[in-house]
């Protein structure tokens, strides 16, 4: 059971309190603990704040952050904050050697995961392969990409493997953009939701083997760089999260930079790039949505077989999120009267959403990561014969505050990035502020959707 609540599900109630607390920390400065403190215990009755108020508070926190940011209208100050950076390591040799060590580590971990997941004990909490993938990698490592920086190009074992394999170097069809990665991301989440990949180690091993085959075939045909830049969803996710981070790499230099400033050059930001960003934001939502009673009643009412309903809902919700964002860009164009095309506005403003996605990821996974980390460590000492009893850590109360801050900081960052974007694009200061109204409205919509899902009682996905 514990491993099946790997995703947002088991931390959901915790997050409700977090968000209720956002009001306290961010907007109200009322002690959060009054509401947040009661949440560790079981049962959703312990949630003191009613759902409508949680939604309202989350929405208002976003709006209030926008009002705060809009007080800063000094163009040169905004540009200076955005472009600030300080070089830390400036040595090609050090970086190359570091990358070699890290990529070796990646290969070893992949081999161990594959071996233990297929040959080791099949109880989820006793299997090092399963714990490594979900706790170590998808929760922990992902956090490092937006909190520290993106190291995946070095660690990625498939990239390492593909480099020693030959390449046919067929030219990648440019018009596809990153659509293959977008479709693959949706497909991976679909597999995650409907299959036992989260609880069954040997099934996980099978999925990894299929992924390996597809990835190596892709790099063989199109070349390593092309494949990981356009078609591989995992590399895209980490690249995007890495742009939120405070450390960045440019050739032989690693620098400290303003978090989120690298979002400005997701380049060349194409239409498909926008779709990928929105897909990343949507999949976190979808994952929670399928275990709400609302989804259950949809399943009961709609006369479509379950196997078709999941992908249908996945694509429909993605379309809705995408349409909302395009609608916002059109409204922004109308409000500002600008001659810049809607397509350009969409491309420039979409990357700011990644900061929100990162904030939610942290709020969702931090407690989960900490509580299962001892299990991972224990099992790692004896992968094939783990102790029967595995300790689970109960996250201390102050962790709720950390999650709270994560959501808040993610929003602040997203709003600041959108603010800097607007001031870069529009010559008028008031025009730049007004241009953000529709985007802020969409952010409020995304936030309230996520919060509504988090506030739903949790039922097993049909």
């Amino acid at each position: 059971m514990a491993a099946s609540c790997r995703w947002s599900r088991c931390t959901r109630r915790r997050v409700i309190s977090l968000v209720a607390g956002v009001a306290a920390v961010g907007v109200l400065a009322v002690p959060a603990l009054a509401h947040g403190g009661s949440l560790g215990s079981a049962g959703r009755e312990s949630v003191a704040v009613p759902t409508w108020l949680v939604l309202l508070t989350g929405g208002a926190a976003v709006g209030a952050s926008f009002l705060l940011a809009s007080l800063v209208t000094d163009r040169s100050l905004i540009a200076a904050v955005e472009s600030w950076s300080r070089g830390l390591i400036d040595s090609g040799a050090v970086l190359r050697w570091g990358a070699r060590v890290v990529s070796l580590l990646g290969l070893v971990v992949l081999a161990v995961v594959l071996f233990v997941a297929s040959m080791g004990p099949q109880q989820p909490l006793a299997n090092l392969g399963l714990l490594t993938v979900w706790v170590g990698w998808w929760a922990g490592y992902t956090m490092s990409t937006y909190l520290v920086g993106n190291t995946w190009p070095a660690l990625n074992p498939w990239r390492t493997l593909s480099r020693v394999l030959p390449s046919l170097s067929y030219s990648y069809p440019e018009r596809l953009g990153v659509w293959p990665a977008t479709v693959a991301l949706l497909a991976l989440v679909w597999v995650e939701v409907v299959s036992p990949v989260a609880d069954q180690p040997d099934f996980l091993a099978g999925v990894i083997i299929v992924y390996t085959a597809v990835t190596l075939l892709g790099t063989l045909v199109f070349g390593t760089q092309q494949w990981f830049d356009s078609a591989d969803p995992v590399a895209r996710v980490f690249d995007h999260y890495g742009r939120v981070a405070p450390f960045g790499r440019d050739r032989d230099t690693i620098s400290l930079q303003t978090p989120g400033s690298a979002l400005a050059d997701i380049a060349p930001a194409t239409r498909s790039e926008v779709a990928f960003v929105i897909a990343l934001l949507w999949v976190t939502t979808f994952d929670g949505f399928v275990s709400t009673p609302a989804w259950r009643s949809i399943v009961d009412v709609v006369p479509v077989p379950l196997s078709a309903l999941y992908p249908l809902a996945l694509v429909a919700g993605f379309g809705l999120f995408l349409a909302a964002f395009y609608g916002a860009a059109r409204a922004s164009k109308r409000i500002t009267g600008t001659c810049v095309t809607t397509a350009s506005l969409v491309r420039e403003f979409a990357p700011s959403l990644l900061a929100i996605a990162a904030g939610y990821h942290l709020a969702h996974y931090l407690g989960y990561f900490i509580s299962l980390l001892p299990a991972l460590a224990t099992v790692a000492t004896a992968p094939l014969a783990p102790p029967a009893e595995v300790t689970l850590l109960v996250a201390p109360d102050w962790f709720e505050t950390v999650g709270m801050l994560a959501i808040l900081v993610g929003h602040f960052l997203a709003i600041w990035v959108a603010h800097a974007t607007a001031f870069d694009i529009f010559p008028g200061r008031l025009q730049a502020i007004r241009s953000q109204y529709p985007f802020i409205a969409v952010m409020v919509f995304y936030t309230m959707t996520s919060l509504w899902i988090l506030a739903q009682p949790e039922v097993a996905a049909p």
Partner: protein
Amino acid sequence: MRTERLSYDDGSDTAVCEYCGRPFPDDDLLALHRGTRHFEQLPDDQQAAYEAAYADEQESVRLFRLKALGGLILVYFGFLMVYAVV
């Protein structure tokens, strides 16, 4: 940075910047653009036009700030009351 890669509507020629060719919906915004992007190159009359447009805008920016602060205070006390009641 971003301005380098923006695309513009076809046939928008109401107010076009003579230094970089970008179109703007009206002369005020064009004047503001010239001042922020090409200030050093501008002849005196265009610098003056920029400063005038900037000063004009300052008034509405100040008004907006007041409204924003008012909004923040409203949200703050609104939620303070709601949380006290709930």
